[in-house]
């Protein structure tokens, strides 16, 4: 005797049909309103449709099951509207980047820089080579500075648990809220202004490090906290010193999580613009030396295109963003993949 499991609490076909009819009628009503009054365009249509359908569905629930059911339905409607309002900009942004981002990309885009052509020149002139090199340099230097400092900070909080850990943790959180412009201003005021030194890639990397360290530190701390204390005790019980335990037991156990922390740190700084405006000088020519002289970067490239204002420049800006977004998506995908395949040892 086989019995089929059912879920009688799910909405019945009749309920769903009623709801769809109500939604359809709301759409019609919204359309009629928009067509016959001064409102124009899709925005008022969507707005009226949203309001009508939520109210109508709540009304139906209220008539069927009373006031509480109406409030319940209203809340559900508001929740759906909320998530829709969240997704709409995301979809719009991604769509815009993809649709406008490829116009300026041609065969020579990655192999030329902007030293010969202004941003308003035709799209087949000039390219992003200098900015790519610059961004790669800056990320590399920022990694070299931020990863050790970030992981050491995390180790201080989880392994050594030294005095002031609470304060340090609090400060790291506070530091992650520093506006990026302040980081740039600081480096400018400390290392460039009044010293005779000019802009350079290195300065930009320093400013980015200020933003990257807290991200790496916080994620690394969470990952290190997940390492079971038994592992540490096992290491110490074998007679290993604390630093050996950390280096040979704890850190390898948290390996993929730490890599995730680093990747998230890079994603954080890859698109930062404001700090670079005070530190790198934004060159148009390719500069291979990060320690000396202005350096172009992708965000600065986008910024310059934005300031230029011409339609060609706008296309270049979108192309720059397109490349940046590909990088961010790749970083994010890698981070997600790593945290999923992480085995618990």
């Amino acid at each position, binding site marked *: 005797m086989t*019995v089929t*499991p*059912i879920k009688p*609490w799910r909405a019945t076909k*009749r309920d769903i049909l009623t709801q769809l009819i109500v939604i359809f009628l709301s759409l019609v009503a919204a359309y009629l309103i928009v067509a016959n009054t001064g409102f124009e365009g899709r925005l008022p249509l969507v707005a009226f449709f949203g309001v009508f359908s939520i109210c109508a569905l709540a009304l139906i629930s209220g008539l069927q099951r*009373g*006031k*509480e059911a109406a409030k319940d339905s209203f809340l559900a409607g508001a929740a759906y509207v909320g998530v829709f309002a969240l997704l709409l900009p995301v979809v719009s942004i991604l769509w815009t980047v993809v649709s406008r981002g490829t116009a300026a990309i041609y065969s020579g885009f990655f192999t030329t820089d902007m030293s010969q052509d202004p941003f308003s020149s035709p799209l087949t002139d000039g390219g992003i080579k200098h900015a790519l090199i610059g961004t790669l340099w800056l990320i590399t230097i920022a990694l070299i500075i931020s990863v050790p400092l970030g992981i050491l900070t995390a180790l201080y909080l989880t392994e050594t648990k030294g005095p002031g850990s609470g304060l340090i943790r609090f400060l790291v959180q506070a530091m992650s809220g520093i506006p990026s412009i302040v980081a740039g201003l600081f480096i400018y005021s400390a290392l460039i202004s009044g010293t005779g030194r000019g802009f350079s890639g290195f300065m930009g990397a320093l400013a980015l490090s200020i933003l990257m360290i807290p991200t790496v530190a916080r994620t690394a701390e969470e990952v290190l906290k997940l390492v079971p204390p038994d592992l540490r005790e096992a290491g110490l019980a074998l007679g290993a010193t604390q630093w050996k335990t950390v280096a040979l037991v704890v850190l390898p156990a948290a390996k993929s999580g730490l890599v995730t922390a680093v990747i998230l740190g890079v994603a954080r700084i890859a698109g930062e613009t404001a700090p670079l405006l005070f530190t790198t000088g934004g060159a148009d020519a390719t500069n291979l030396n990060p320690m000396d002289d202005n350096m172009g970067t992708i965000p600065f490239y986008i910024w310059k295109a934005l300031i230029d204002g011409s339609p060609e420049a706008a296309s270049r800006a979108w192309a720059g963003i397109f490349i940046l977004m590909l990088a961010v998506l790749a970083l994010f995908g890698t981070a997600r993949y790593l945290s999923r395949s992480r085995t618990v040892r």
Partner: protein
Amino acid sequence: MSDDMLGKKEENGMNATTAADTTNSIASGADQPHSSGLGAVAAASAAKRTRTEQPFGSGLEARNVHAWFGKYHAISDMSLDFPTGTVTALIGPSGCGKSTFLRTLNRMHEFIPGAAMAGEVLLHGKDIYAPGTDVTKIRLKIGMVFQKPNPFPSMTIGENVLAGIKLAQLKVSDKKELLEECLERAGLWNEVKDRLDQPGGSLSGGQQQRLCIARSLAVRPEVLLMDEPCSALDPGSTLKIEETIAELAKTMTVIIVTHNMQQAARVSDYTAFLLSDGGPGQLIEFAPTREIFTRPKDKRTENYVTGRFG
């Protein structure tokens, strides 16, 4: 299978005044010698209970109830007609589906992701799972007390008792009267009447559980489901709550899941024995408590109540 059918037929023929009959048959020495001492306990408790008040109807009946968690078939073909105005205990070893079955009775089972069911649960002859049923109204009629006391910590004692009124937005003419009545019935009024505005979490475990009972009473349920209500409490509190249950049974139907057979013997009029032998949990036997513990019809029941397993 025929055993519990028999048990069911017997129970259908019984009404609320049977307790007196069972007492008489004890006196006539109808006990079997191999019965557990629980039989005597059950008999003694039954003798204490009088059924002079007319309970308002529950008419709660489960017909061929199944429950699944995803693909896992948790309980199978449970059919029970709960007698009005009585206390029914659900006993059985851990994992046999007692709590799962309990939760199908007030439609709390469906909150678990992947939950599915089959069969019917009838309240006054109407299936509570019928399409179009307002499930919140069902839960007003079929209340539940949980294993771990869960008063709302952000509310005072008084607010906790009336929480159900507030949540369901019910109209009550005299809140103070309702408050006192519920706390009185839960056996808590004297202990908290002077500190109704203290936070709900400031009471001891046993008091918190009685607060939860009072809270469920405020919405005037016809049936009260209790999921191992005393297992997290000390013996003193347990005793107080068992007294409360006896009081409650005068005006409503109580169904209590318990893994403590002594408690089942003390508290309940009827007992259902559930068992899962690797597969889904099933109803093995349902009979008046005294019979389950003295003359169980199924060998498995006998093994369980005499402590050979479980």
